[in-house]
């Protein structure tokens, strides 16, 4: 059945190519229907774990080439929420593509992304995983930059890092194949575990190849620069997919391969240095996650582009999840997965809200916006709830997942990691508040006077996402119960949870009570708002320039927008500590290009040179053959 779903995806994608350009939205309707059907089947499989499918296509050259799928609890969980969220995005996209002269190829390649999504999450061996992984990379390459010169540079970063990651992953798979003569994931990590005591250097190398492969995809340090480029330049609705879903593939890979490996090592500690109950390797990776989240937070604070800001926020959230997962306790892993899912939900909501803003205003720079809350109330509310969730404020789902992460870190006695996470979590307030205020609150520029709320079809996914954020925040058990079955599949203790109460070793929290408290205080504040003095509308120029006409000084209204250079003093504080990673990559690229140019130029140097090199090489070869035996 999995194979049929994948095949039908491919077929429908080709079918959608025949839709004429005028009826572009019809392609998106097809896409939504496909997603809905897939979702239905996924829902049917919610209890049929460890069902596997194998497609033996060809047996060539003494090899059985087959695609193997298995429904694991982890894969099912990931695929279910990714498909669900993609379905919501696709509804948004239908309306977005109605009038617009949009690209044929976006929806075409998005089909392949969904196909590869299902393939990755249900892959039972490395070969299947890798094939769908590559399919995902290639098709996303064409979606991020569907024929715009501007996004070319951004997609270059993305593509180089992705192919580099895939290169390392393929290398690791090759080494494992050499050892086990099979592509099975399970035998891969058990072999690698035994190799740790036989040949530590090689095994560390293989592990590092996998880490690089997965970490490039999930944009952890030092690969953290591509989301800010790619998410910002991609089509708006696709940014939601990129940020909410695609960035999770790397984390899924970690959970699929590295976590079982480290759990094995943790249970047989004779093979590895253990610190604080977890292997050193894993500990380092947690720190990588924490550092990523801190750095990404600072970068988010600096950025003025709203999509870039949200992208950096994504990187920070991935950092929390990574930190938590590599704690390797059952609370840590549960918190990590929970964080992944909640982040997917609220980041989709935020990006859809931003896409709605851009749909109406065609602006991305925050200081050109402002005061849209009255014009676009639903979008505003979505964004508001989204950032509340992102900041981890109680009634929303972000609170629940962050609570889990803190509990896991504290109960595992990692005070410094906790501080790092707390730091970046606090930083999240700074940039999220700024985004909210500068886009939706404050003064409305004159040119946006006739901006309307987005059409109803676009509002539907926003309503659903709002409800989802609230629901999973109040009843975290909805998500934590499936996570428990994932933990069982890892041979870990399931976390203790009811629908509305979360327990940890240190404390417990009843989120329903928290919700009621918060809504009560909100109602109180709202009443105060209603009975207070009516507000007075002041033009910004009145406020700042005391009524003078600023045009005489070449000043515009935008320069007085308070979102411009909002955190400038804060940025100055960190100026001396800044290391520009982008600069590093650029210089690396320059070095590679210089080397290539050196080779290329030496190729077309003069004629004598070529024969000189010929003889030189001949002499080298002769010296090898003659003297080295």
């Amino acid at each position, binding site marked *: 059945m999995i194979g049929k779903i994948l095949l039908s995806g491919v077929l429908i994608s080709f079918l959608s190519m025949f839709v004429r350009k005028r009826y572009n939205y019809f392609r998106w309707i097809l896409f939504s229907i496909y997603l809905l059907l897939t979702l239905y089947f996924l829902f049917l499989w919610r209890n049929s774990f460890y069902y596997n499918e194998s497609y033996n296509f060809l047996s*060539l050259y003494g090899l059985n080439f087959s695609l193997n799928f298995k429904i694991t609890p982890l894969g099912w969980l990931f695929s279910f929420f990714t498909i669900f969220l993609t379905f919501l995005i696709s509804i948004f996209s239908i309306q977005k593509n109605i009038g617009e002269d949009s690209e044929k190829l976006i929806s075409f390649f998005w089909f392949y992304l969904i196909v590869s999504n299902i393939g990755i999450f249900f892959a039972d061996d490395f070969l299947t995983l890798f094939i769908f992984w590559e399919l995902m990379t290639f098709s996303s390459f064409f979606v991020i930059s569907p024929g715009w010169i501007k996004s070319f540079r951004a997609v270059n970063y993305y593509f180089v890092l992705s192919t580099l990651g895939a290169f390392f992953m393929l290398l690791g798979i090759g080494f494992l194949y050499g050892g086990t003569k099979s592509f099975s994931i399970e035998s891969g990590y058990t072999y690698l575990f035994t190799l740790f005591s036989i040949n530590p250097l090689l095994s560390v190398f293989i592990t590092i190849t996998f880490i690089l492969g997965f970490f490039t995809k999930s944009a952890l340090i030092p690969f953290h620069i591509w989301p800010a480029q790619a998410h910002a330049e991609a089509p708006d609705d696709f940014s939601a997919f990129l940020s909410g879903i695609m960035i999770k593939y790397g984390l899924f890979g970690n959970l699929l391969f590295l976590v079982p490996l480290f759990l094995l090592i943790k249970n047989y500690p004779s093979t590895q240095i253990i610190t604080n109950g977890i292997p050193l390797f894993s500990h380092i990776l947690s720190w990588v996650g924490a550092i990523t989240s801190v750095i990404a937070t600072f970068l988010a604070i600096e950025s003025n582009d709203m999509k870039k800001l949200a992208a950096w926020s994504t990187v920070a959230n991935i950092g929390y999840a990574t930190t938590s997962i590599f704690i390797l306790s059952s609370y840590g892993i549960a918190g990590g997965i929970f964080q992944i899912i909640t982040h997917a939900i609220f980041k989709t909501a935020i990006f859809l809200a931003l896409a709605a803003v851009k749909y109406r205003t065609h602006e991305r720079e925050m200081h050109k916006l402002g005061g849209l809350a009255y014009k676009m109330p639903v979008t505003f509310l979505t964004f508001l709830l989204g950032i509340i969730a992102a900041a981890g404020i109680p009634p929303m789902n972000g609170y629940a997942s962050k609570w889990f992460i803190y509990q896991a870190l504290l109960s595992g006695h990692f005070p410094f990691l906790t501080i790092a996470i707390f730091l970046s979590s606090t930083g999240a307030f700074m940039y999220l508040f700024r985004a909210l205020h500068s886009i939706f609150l404050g003064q409305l520029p004159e040119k946006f006077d006739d901006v309307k709320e987005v059409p109803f079809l676009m509002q539907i996914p926003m309503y659903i996402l709002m409800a989802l954020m609230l629901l999973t925040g109040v009843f975290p058990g909805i998500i934590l119960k499936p996570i428990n079955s994932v933990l069982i599949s890892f041979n870990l203790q399931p976390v203790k949870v009811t629908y509305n109460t979360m327990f940890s070793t240190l404390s417990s929290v009843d989120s329903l009570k928290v919700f009621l408290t918060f809504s009560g205080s909100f109602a109180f504040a709202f009443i105060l708002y209603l009975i207070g003095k009516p507000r007075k509308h002041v033009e910004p120029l009145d406020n700042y320039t005391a009524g003078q006409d600023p045009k005489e000084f070449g000043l515009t209204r935008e320069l007085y927008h308070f979102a411009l250079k909002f955190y400038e003093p804060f940025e100055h504080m960190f100026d001396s500590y800044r290391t520009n990673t982008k600069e590093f990559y650029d210089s690396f690229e320059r070095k*590679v290009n210089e080397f290539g140019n050196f080779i290329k130029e030496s190729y*077309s140097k003069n004629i004598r040179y070529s024969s000189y090199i010929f003889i030189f090489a001949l002499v080298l*070869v002769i010296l090898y053959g003659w003297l080295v035996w």
Partner: protein
Amino acid sequence: MNYNLPVLLIAIPILFSFLSLILGSFNKILSKIILISVIIFNIISGICIYNSVLKNGNILTVIGNYLPPFGINLISTYTSISFLILLYIVFLVASLIFVSKNDDRADKISSVLLLYLASSTGILLTGDIFNLFVFIEIFSISNIILISIKDKKLSIKGSLKYLIITSIGASLYLFGIGFLYGILGTLNLSEISLNFDNISYFSKVFIFLFFLGSIMAELEVFPFNFWISDSYAGSKNYVNILLSGLSSIVALYIFIRLFLTVFGYPTFISFSYSLPFNVKTLFLTIFGLSVIVNELAALSSKNVKRILGFSSASSLSLILLSLSTGLKNGVMAAMLIAISVIISKPLLFLSSHQIMKGKGEKNLNSFIDGFRRNPLFSILFIIGVFTLVGFPLTPSFWGKFLLFISATEKISYTTLILVIVVFSITIELFYYFRLMHKLFIKDENIKVEKTKNNFVYIFSGILLASIIIFFSVKPYFTQNIVEKTTEDIFDKSGYIKSCLKSGEIDDR
């Protein structure tokens, strides 16, 4: 048995090359007609020979009525004849493109092309080491002429480089022949391969290394290939096709014959060498370095022709790398990659030429908006890229997969192959995707006009693409061919037997 059709494959083009010059002085069209009809004759008789090789095994053709090792002989093995058919297809495409263009030197160039055809056929069929040398010389001289047809500084410099390097290489080759003849008293490949092991220590090293050095220039391997950059960038389109497709086949076949059949020792699953030093490590170093360097050069190039040229050099090195693993899987991988490279490289040259048509500079940016200008050839270009890079189900996918697997066989020097292969795939992916991406970029400022494609280009592009697709959708057919070829390459005693009637080599 004496089966004389193979010699006609060489004799007829030579005969008609003279005739084309005679008749071409009356009318240039006659020589074009002669060119095309000779190729069609060669294809048809090639298929006849293929069938009889399938039926009867290797075919020995005796020349001058003197049996080997006394006279010169041609041996048509499965490998050579299947390579030959591939070669003829590429040649047909190139000559069709040549014919479609107006050139006032058409009679002379078609004569050169016919001799090129004859010489490459001769290289693939001959069973005599000196005869091989003569054909290689004809081949390289015609290469030089074809490169320098375009009257540009770049092409003439390239061909002069090629000339100097190949003539030094030829001198090395002749020294090798002198030594072989002085020691063994024979020039027949089968007899040399039968007795090569009896040669003394240093002489063996000498002969091996000199032969290696001499054919390195043809093989487009890194420290010896300084001619390719200028030659590819500065020559005409059909010459590019010939250089990338045909030269690769020929070089590959020379390598197989000399270094696997004559100097190598096949056992059931691998080749070994009775030389004092580790030949495989030497090959690995040279070819691996060549793959990496050429890929990097292609990555940093801006001229599309140069990119494709470097890329074809690197894929040839990759083929040689997988051949020189000497494993059965490696040889099969080499054959698979060879099939896809030989067909897809001409396709890439052809379609990139059509996409860039009308643009003054041939750099990367001339690909912008290519899809709207020329949808057909953009699609053909994409097919070519997918085939080259190793998209699933194309032959090169299977080839790279097999190479990948054979490289992991044991953790030793072969694992280095793994790194090289994966590295090359990554870089190749990157620069080809960059090109493909440019095809879809829309330049809003420029109004797009659809390019008119010549019928010949459409025909040959679709021919090549359909061959690729045929090989991809019929994997069992491809497997059959590749396995037979590999068996044939490993069957050294069969080669000797077909020539000398009995050849016992001690299978180690």
